[in-house]
């Protein structure tokens, strides 16, 4: 039913909006719009005093919808939904209109145009509010239990953080041992702590907590349900265990890039090895650095192998950890062994933050840095049983430099770990770089579009240990804040099917990526029906329906077409 008593608030945002948009003109232009009952301007709509005034307005005037014309919806939708709710109005009868980012700021060069645009945007907002429907979020009980998948250093950190906040944790690791990559490392940057010690310390913290149950040799084999209430089957050794959890924190980590056969001589020349192999060699050698029975005096490191690739390669990203890891290895070499020369063939060193100190140390040790670009990569050749590396060094005006090397270390980057089974079980979106994808790198960095499935650590993007820990704790805090209440509010902006218009052709079910469309009976016919627990409100099903039987709540034909008509004025 059309809303007839709409309150409209036009915000100055200090001067952010009103310096360019003539607020009085906007008010004048919209005051006679149908269904506008109350119209005000406000210096800061989001301020406490304005919010209180809105609550009072809604209550005294018995408004049935409100429009706030201010900043981007990304900022204050929860704020004004809260206002509506406190005033006893349905939060979905509030509409946000963006006259700042897409008004006053975008058109600060043209105040007249910015004002004209703001008028139409507000009118469109009023049209949308008029057709808005009260939507009710249903509440369901939620289990304050999290399955943390992967017990590398990230997963163990997530588990500990969750347990300390009172959440029960199942820590599920597919290998026999925990700790992931770090458990196999000796000295680490930037603290020189031992990797295996760090891993063992975390494990002992895990074991101290009664509300963490660790399963090794374990993998999820089945998942059903939605946030707050997932039922999973976990295969532990040869048994299958049913568990009930509220959410997942996926901490499944990375793999090291495996060079192609022949890439910088890899697989063809025995003295071409990867950085993880070299780290092991350093850890396992004492006094002298020996490889294949030969003393190593000159090490050539080739950077960015498998990272920062050109159009022919898949991995366009920088792996972040490897500049520092390679330099750290060279510093270790200098500490542990005498008379070894380190030659770093790099593409610009990326030792950000405190890691820069290691770069400085290595430079002071006399390490040599040569820089190349992708169109002229180092060449590795064999002459008379010796290995040579040749490069055009950018740092000396492109001069060609050739040097002998006893060992070539390929500084290999991180790649996503093969985990397609898990990705399809949990429906985790995968990004352009093939790592798991968050909703927004800055605004919602550990959540995925699947409610209740969070990601952290290196399954999401290359990270060092500190960054892995930080994102793991962020994921733990985020999901604990949701589950700790013991109940969940479901988002009500879902698809809805008008059964009398549906002729069951199945096209919507085919289009839905979340298995959210099921069959039901209506008037003795089979028709489509939305399974609300699965529907994500993407609307993919709506344009494919030949009879236009599907509307998305909040984006109905009446609302969108009302907006189009207003904007076209």
């Amino acid at each position, binding site marked *: 039913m059309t809303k007839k008593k709409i309150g409209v608030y036009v915000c100055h945002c200090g001067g952010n909006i009103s310096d360019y948009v003539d607020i009085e003109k906007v008010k004048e232009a919209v005051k006679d719009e149908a269904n506008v009952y109350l119209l005000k301007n406000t210096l800061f709509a989001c301020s406490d005093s304005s919010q209180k005034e809105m609550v009072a307005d809604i209550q005294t005037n018995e408004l049935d919808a409100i429009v706030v014309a201010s900043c981007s919806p990304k900022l204050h939708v929860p704020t004004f939904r809260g206002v509506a709710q406190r005033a006893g109005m349905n939060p979905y009868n509030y509409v946000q209109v963006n006259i700042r980012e897409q008004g006053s700021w975008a058109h600060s060069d043209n105040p007249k145009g910015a004002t004209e645009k703001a008028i139409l945007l507000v009118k469109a907002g009023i049209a949308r509010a008029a057709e808005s429907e009260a939507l009710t979020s249903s509440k369901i009980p939620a289990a304050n239990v999290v399955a943390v998948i992967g017990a590398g250093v990230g997963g163990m950190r997530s588990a500990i953080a969750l347990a300390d906040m009172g959440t029960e944790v199942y820590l599920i690791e597919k290998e026999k041992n925990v700790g992931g990559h770090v458990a196999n490392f000796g000295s680490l940057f930037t603290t020189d702590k031992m990797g295996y010690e760090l891993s063992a310390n975390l494990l002992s913290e895990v074991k101290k907590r009664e509300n963490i149950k660790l399963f090794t040799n374990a993998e999820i084999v089945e998942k059903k349900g939605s946030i707050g209430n997932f039922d999973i089957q976990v295969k532990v050794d040869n048994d299958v265990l049913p568990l009930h959890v509220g959410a997942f924190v996926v901490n499944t980590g990375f793999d090291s890039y495996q060079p192609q056969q022949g890439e910088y001589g890899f697989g063809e020349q025995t003295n071409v090895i990867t950085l993880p192999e070299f780290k092991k060699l350093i850890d396992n050698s004492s006094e002298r650095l020996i490889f294949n029975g030969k003393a190593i005096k000159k090490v050539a490191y080739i950077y960015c192998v498998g990272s920062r690739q050109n159009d022919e390669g898949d991995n366009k990203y920088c792996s972040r950890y490897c500049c520092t890891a390679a330099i750290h290895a060279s510093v270790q070499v200098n500490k542990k062994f005498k008379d070894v020369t380190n030659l770093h063939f790099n593409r610009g060193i990326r030792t950000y933050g405190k890691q820069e100190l290691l770069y400085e140390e290595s430079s002071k040790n006399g390490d040599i840095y040569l820089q190349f670009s992708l169109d002229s990569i180092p060449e590795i050749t064999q002459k008379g049983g010796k290995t040579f590396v040749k490069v055009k060094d950018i740092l000396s005006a492109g001069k060609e430099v050739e040097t002998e090397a006893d060992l070539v270390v390929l500084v290999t980057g991180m790649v996503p770990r093969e985990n397609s089974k898990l990705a399809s079980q949990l429906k985790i979106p995968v990004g352009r770089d093939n790592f798991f994808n968050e909703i927004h790198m800055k605004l919602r960095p550990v959540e995925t579009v699947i409610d209740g499935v969070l990601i952290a650590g290196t399954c999401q993007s290359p990270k060092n240990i500190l960054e892995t820990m930080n994102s793991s704790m962020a994921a733990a805090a985020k999901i604990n804040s949701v589950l700790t209440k013991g109940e969940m509010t479901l988002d009500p902006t879902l698809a809805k099917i008008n059964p009398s218009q549906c002729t069951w052709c199945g096209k919507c079910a085919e289009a839905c990526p979340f298995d959210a469309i099921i069959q039901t009976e209506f008037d003795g016919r089979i028709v489509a029906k939305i399974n609300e627990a699965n529907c994500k*409100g993407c609307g993919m099903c709506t344009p494919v329906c030949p009879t236009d039987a599907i509307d998305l709540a909040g*984006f109905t034909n009446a609302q969108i077409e009302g907006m189009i008509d207003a904007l076209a004025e």
Partner: protein
Amino acid sequence: MASNGQPKILVFSTEKISDPALDLAGLLKKHYPFTIYTISVPCSSCIKPRWIMRAFDKGFSGVFIAADGTDCSYGESCGEKTSQVVTTTHQLMRDKGLKPSQLKMAAICSVCAEPVVKHLTGFMKELEKMQS
């Protein structure tokens, strides 16, 4: 038509991905013509051809779909499904004597401030040429 005689463009942006790019353009004061108006939806593959046709009927000269492309958080099929919406609409447009070039689509991610402004100003220029 707007007061300055410029053509009007309706942009369909997506709440999580391409609308933030337009916000970012505003934040960076990257200007574009003010006769460009946005309606934001959850995913570009939910845009109904009838909405686009309604915009043309009511006087918009162009419609631009700022699609999610491969970044869509609802899954990889989004790009293909949005293209399908465009194909279907192009047919409806031809039937009404509209030029397919009046409907454009490009994948825009949340940090694409510069590219989205380029797309939109370029599209506006094309429409102005068409109009003259």
